[in-house]
């Protein structure tokens, strides 16, 4: 039986969602999503054992135990990051220039960059901390930590070499031509004209690499750090084991975020500023 047969057409035809005005529909759907969110929050609040969470993740007693030492770990994280970034970036400039040259220098740079970008950083750290010292019976300066740091310098240089090369290639070729026509030799042109401009272009991606490296220092745990050498993650993990509690990891996480979130925001700002200049 259809509506028309029963004589009900017009007054009570089937209700369709599209009959509601668009503004009303939008308001309804937003209201529904707030409602669902509220229900989820209430469920979480009532069904969670807050005591347990506080005891395991936000334990004030455990936290106060960690307080002076965790800043040393934060200091180590920052120190390792800075050292690896500075050395890695200097090395990256050399490899970027080598990759843009011709002949064996270029082949070597290509192989180096592909190798260390292709391997997991963890494996490279392990190789330099243990495999290479054992295989060749050498002691790297700084022991296993030194080996791990060398590995991070190498990994950073491989990544940053590509970033820097892209920056150098983004400098208009007229800059090189102007410098060369003034009689500047190749290297002088690179160092005084091209590199300063190329590096400026890649400040945002390099800051990004810095944040990545900061997090990658956590991988140094595999090098087996002594108490004084520990960085944030290792410190948090050790604290978790000794206290049988997750508060140390939460604290470490908060300290990471205090450093990385402003840095990431800075990258966004720098990118905008450079985009405006163009």
């Amino acid at each position, binding site marked *: 039986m259809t509506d028309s047969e029963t004589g009900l057409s017009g007054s009570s035809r089937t209700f369709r969602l599209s009959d509601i005005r668009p503004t009303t529909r939008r308001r309804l759907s937003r209201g529904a999503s707030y409602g669902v969110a509220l229900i989820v929050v209430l469920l979480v609040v009532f069904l969670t054992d807050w005591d347990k969470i506080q005891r395991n993740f936000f334990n004030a007693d455990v936290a106060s135990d960690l307080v002076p030492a965790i800043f040393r770990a934060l200091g180590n994280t920052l120190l390792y990051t800075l050292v690896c970034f500075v050395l890695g970036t200097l090395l990256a400039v050399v490899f970027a220039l080598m990759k843009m040259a011709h002949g064996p220098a270029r082949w070597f740079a290509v192989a180096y960059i592909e190798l260390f970008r292709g391997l997991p950083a963890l494996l490279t750290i392990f190789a330099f901390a243990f495999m290479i010292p054992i295989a060749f019976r050498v002691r790297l300066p700084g022991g296993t930590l030194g080996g791990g740091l060398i590995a991070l310098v190498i990994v950073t240089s491989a990544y940053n070499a590509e970033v820097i090369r892209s920056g150098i290639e983004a400098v*208009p070729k*007229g*800059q090189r*031509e*102007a*410098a*060369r*026509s*003034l*009689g*500047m*030799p190749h290297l*002088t042109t690179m160092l*005084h*004209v091209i590199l*300063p*401009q190329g590096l*400026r272009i890649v400040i945002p991606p390099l800051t990004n690499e810095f944040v990545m490296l900061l997090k990658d220092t956590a991988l140094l745990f595999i090098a087996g750090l002594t108490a004084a050498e520990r960085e944030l993650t290792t410190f948090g993990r050790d604290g978790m084991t000794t206290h049988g509690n997750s508060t140390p990891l939460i604290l470490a996480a908060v300290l990471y975020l205090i450093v990385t979130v402003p840095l990431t925001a800075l990258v966004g700002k720098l990118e905008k500023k450079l985009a405006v200049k163009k």
Partner: protein
Amino acid sequence: MSPRPGLPSRLHARDTPDPSAPPIQVVGLRKSFGHHEVLKGIDLTVERGEVVCVIGPSGSGKSTLLRSINLLEWPTAGQVRIEGIDVLDPDVNLDRVRTRIGMVFQSFNLFPPMTVLRNTTIAQEKVLGRSRSQAERVGRDMLERVGLQDKIDAHPSQLSGGQQQRVAIARSLAMNPDMMLFDEPTSALDPELVGEVLEVMRSLAESGMTMMVVTHEMGFAREVGTRLIFMDDGLIVEQGLPRQVLSDPQQPRTQLFLSKVL
């Protein structure tokens, strides 16, 4: 540097400018990009003090010819002699020869991170070995010559196109070049800024500078040029006194080109 006594002077002679030789001498110059031959055998001698203007349709090889003279483009065949020096000889210090050839580009190519003054001093210091104060004195003089003494501390991005091009000229002049190459120096400029650049070039020509100018400015070529060269399809088609070539071209291709641009 003088040759050491007892050594054969041959090596020395190869690298030393000969004041009696023509500033620019090009013989049988050819240049190909891949399979495309842009220059098909150019013979050209520019004497001291000449202002040679080069005109021709786009793609005729004018810019490539100019860029082959200071070897921004490496010729496929032929000879390039600068003040008697065979610059294609691998034993010749090309950078040293280039300091004597000023070059001005269509797109200015100033160094953006540097101030106007620094643009004029960096090559003096790094290439000629002048002290900072000496280089700045020369730089200031040259910037005054192009009328930009009050823009010394500005950055290129703060200047108009015409001002940027005048800085570029000052930057080249600061190296005390024996000759100047201009590659369409006013083509990127707004029409109202063309005059100030041509004015600087005119005074430079009047001072006796040897110049080679690739240009579309027929008025400049007529009034300032001492010789006009018309190029088409990688060859010099016609050359002579600018007035003569412009008003009474002999070759059909020159006539066709001039009928389109004049």
